[in-house]
């Protein structure tokens, strides 16, 4: 059973997730960042349900195990859609939304297919393996996509501070989890600490997004970078 620190972090994370939605509603940008807010709301609901299942059935129960991984997969898909919505916002001015959506659908289909090909030789618990594999693969696709989006923001000289903050925090969040995952794989002896750290890392994204919605005005712009001097 998790200890009091784990429960404290869990509750903090839940409060931050709710805070993201509340701050977005308060700032009047709930609909503008609808997928992001829906993801956070779903994450908060997921936490509540996980909490209930954990208390009702126990930490090592089959119910908690299955609910945790299935809900994690659904939340990863929701996070992927939230990321795509950020892509759409960045590429809106180029009128390239339909290409972004097409690419996102292709990528999701390709990732699902790849995940199925990886687990199709498994003998047992095929669906569970598929769900976990899809979640993993989609997570890494999200990681790469975030860096692609960050490159596009730099290239297009995006100056909307709120949007930049959202994408940057997403990039850091994905990178932290990837680093944690790598450490667990490279140093299995340290996996206990790494798994404990996961909970703390999980609080980063709601904290950063709540800050972005709470403190950064919708029309705030970043100062443009130093202009390049082109000799004539």
């Amino acid at each position, binding site marked *: 059973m998790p200890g009091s620190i784990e429960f404290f972090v*869990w509750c903090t994370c839940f409060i931050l997730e709710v805070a993201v939605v509340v701050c977005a509603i308060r700032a009047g940008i709930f609909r503008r960042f609808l997928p992001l807010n829906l993801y956070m709301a779903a994450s908060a609901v997921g*936490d509540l349900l996980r909490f209930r299942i*954990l208390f009702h059935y126990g930490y*090592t129960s089959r119910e908690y195990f299955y609910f945790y991984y299935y809900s994690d997969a659904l939340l990863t898909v929701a996070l992927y859609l939230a990321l795509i919505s950020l892509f759409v916002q960045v590429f809106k001015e180029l009128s390239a939304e339909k290409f972004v959506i097409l690419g996102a659908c292709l990528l999701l289909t*390709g990732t699902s297919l790849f995940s199925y090909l990886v687990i199709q030789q498994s003998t047992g618990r095929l669906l569970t393996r598929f769900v976990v594999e899809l979640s993993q693969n989609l*997570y890494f696709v999200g990681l790469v996509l975030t860096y*692609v989006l960050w490159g596009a923001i730099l290239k297009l000289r995006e100056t909307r501070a709120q949007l930049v903050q959202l994408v940057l925090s997403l990039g850091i969040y994905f990178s932290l989890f*990837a680093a944690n995952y790598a450490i667990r794989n490279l140093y299995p002896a340290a996996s206990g600490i790494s798994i404990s750290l996961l909970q703390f890392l999980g609080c980063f994204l709601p904290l950063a997004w709540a800050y972005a919605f709470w403190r950064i005005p919708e029309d705030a712009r970043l100062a443009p970078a130093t202009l390049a001097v082109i000799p004539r």
Partner: protein
Amino acid sequence: MKLTVVAAMVILVGAMGLKTAVASSGSGSVVMANGGAPAPPSPWKNGGAPAPPSPWKNGGAPAPPSPWKNGGAPAPPSPWK
């Protein structure tokens, strides 16, 4: 259109390559990225969930008495001795 398809494939290949590189030693751990709930043990090595009972070895249901060895009926005397 073609460019979109190619970009999607490149991203997919890149992501899977990155995953392979990160999980090179393959300890079987799982990356979890949503919410602050404590993660249950890895499903593939130390799964918290009990594996579903195998129908061939340790089924939850009581095994029917073997008709050849331990039947309820007394075994008939061996015809060879």
